[in-house]
């Protein structure tokens, strides 16, 4: 009885910690992105609110909260209102299974530094990222607007296609670490992280999650010069804000996934494990921003062709090679 209670309390604490960190991280990710992009284009980026523009996320939040919440006249009201929430909540739920530090040994107890250490954590992650498609697709559909509908359609097709490549990229990792539990996968990456052990899988995974996050160069669903703002064209105020936050949460989730699956998780010398984890996640995020500042948008047919004709076959090949190697190594 006592034990269950304790575990429960611990989960709640961890939950609060993760939630707080992740949400504020997402907010500042927005600022960081705008700043970094600005500097890459020799601008200043936001610099008016607070010192160096540091209060900008707060200002944005207030603005979004104060804005009128518009619902198009012929929109499917309930779906329209639900969609942004799906998008945010799925991103948040994903954090439940992500181990962000080495297990803590306290008072003779081993406290895993993960909100909930599922033994099929990886599958859970995948399930959630599939669910995330719903937010976008429903939002686009419910808006009753051609731009939103097209955006939603594109997002759906794109996410389903690249999910496949993503899944295929992870199979070798699972095969090598012989577990679906993320904690186990992290633990298995000593001394070499999976990025080095499975370079091809790493590459495919990186590209796939970039597409999953709908960011440049894969931002067709919201391609502003053709679709205004894609699936969230009709959204305003905090509902738009939720899509927006969802996107950056997703950025962190994917960063964390990449860290956990390929970059060795919390492992690292000298610094405490949480720090390593954070550094790695932020590094991945920076890389994403950097890509956005550098690459142009793909054409839609190029995107689909690349996913189906290159990434999927490569992923399959990679599985074969890994399996053969594992067999040969016994």
């Amino acid at each position: 009885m006592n034990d269950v209670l304790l575990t429960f309390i611990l989960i709640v604490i961890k939950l609060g910690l993760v939630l707080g960190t992740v949400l504020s991280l997402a907010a500042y990710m927005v600022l960081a992105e705008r700043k970094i992009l600005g500097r890459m284009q020799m601008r200043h980026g936001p610099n008016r609110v607070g010192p160096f523009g540091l209060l900008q996320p707060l200002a944005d939040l207030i603005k979004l909260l104060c804005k009128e919440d518009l619902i198009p006249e012929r929109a499917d009201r309930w779906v329209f209102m639900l969609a942004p929430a799906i998008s945010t909540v799925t991103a948040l739920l994903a954090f439940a299974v992500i181990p962000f530090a080495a297990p803590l040994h306290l008072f003779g107890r081993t406290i895993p530094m993960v909100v909930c250490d599922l033994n099929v954590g990886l599958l859970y992650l995948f399930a959630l990222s599939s669910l995330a498609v719903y937010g976008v697709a429903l939002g686009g559909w419910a808006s009753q607007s051609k731009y939103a509908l097209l955006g939603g359609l594109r997002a759906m097709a794109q996410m389903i296609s690249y999910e496949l490549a993503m899944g295929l990229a992870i199979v070798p990792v699972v095969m090598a670490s012989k577990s679906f539990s993320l904690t186990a996968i992290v633990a298995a990456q000593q001394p070499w992280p999976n990025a080095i052990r499975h370079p091809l899988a790493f590459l495919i995974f990186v590209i796939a999650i970039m597409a999953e996050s709908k960011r440049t160069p894969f931002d067709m669903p919201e391609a502003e010069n053709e679709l205004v703002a894609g699936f969230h064209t009709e959204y305003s105020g905090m509902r738009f804000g939720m899509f927006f936050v969802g996107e950056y949460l997703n950025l962190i989730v994917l960063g964390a996934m990449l860290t956990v699956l390929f970059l060795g998780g919390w492992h690292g010398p000298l610094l405490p494990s949480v720090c390593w984890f954070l550094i790695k996640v932020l590094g991945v995020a920076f890389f994403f921003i950097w890509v956005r500042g550098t690459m142009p948008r793909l054409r839609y047919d190029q995107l689909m062709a690349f996913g189906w004709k290159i990434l999927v076959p490569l992923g399959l090949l990679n599985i074969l090679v890994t399996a053969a190697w594992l067999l040969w190594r016994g």
Partner: protein
Amino acid sequence: MSLWRDIRGTILPFWVTLRYLFRRPVTVCYPERKQTPAPRYRGRLVLTRDPDGEERCVACHLCSAACPVDCISMQAAEREDGRRHAAWFRINFSRCIFCGLCTEACPTLALQMTSEYELASRELLQVIYEKDELLIDGCGKNDGYNFYRLAGIGVAAPRGSNPGETPPVDFRSNLP
């Protein structure tokens, strides 16, 4: 070969953006630092006076016709000496896009652009300028032109006494 080019083409831009990340931004932080605009900068409009100190504008409606956003309005009136002028003249700077078409249309050089650009206001009516706010005391960029001396009508000087005119004809005579 082309694969190599593609790979280079994919990688190199990353290097470019990374380099730019550490450059000094070119943006001028406006309220703290102000730049002096070029002399032909298209800023706030003014109505100038002719060398005799009279209003140049004759309220011909050409600027308002040229304006793509219809932000100029006026009413013409006649002075005792026959001079056509603007009874009132209004420019709505909250609409103006500073394209300069009006100044190009102005046949009397009355309407000219200045380098003043700090017009923003929270009070909409403050950016609606009436004639007394637009009219300045000088000739602006051209200090020689005087429409009424060249127009061929006897306003600034009696008929026939302006440059390039012969004295009024006597139509009652049939002599050659």
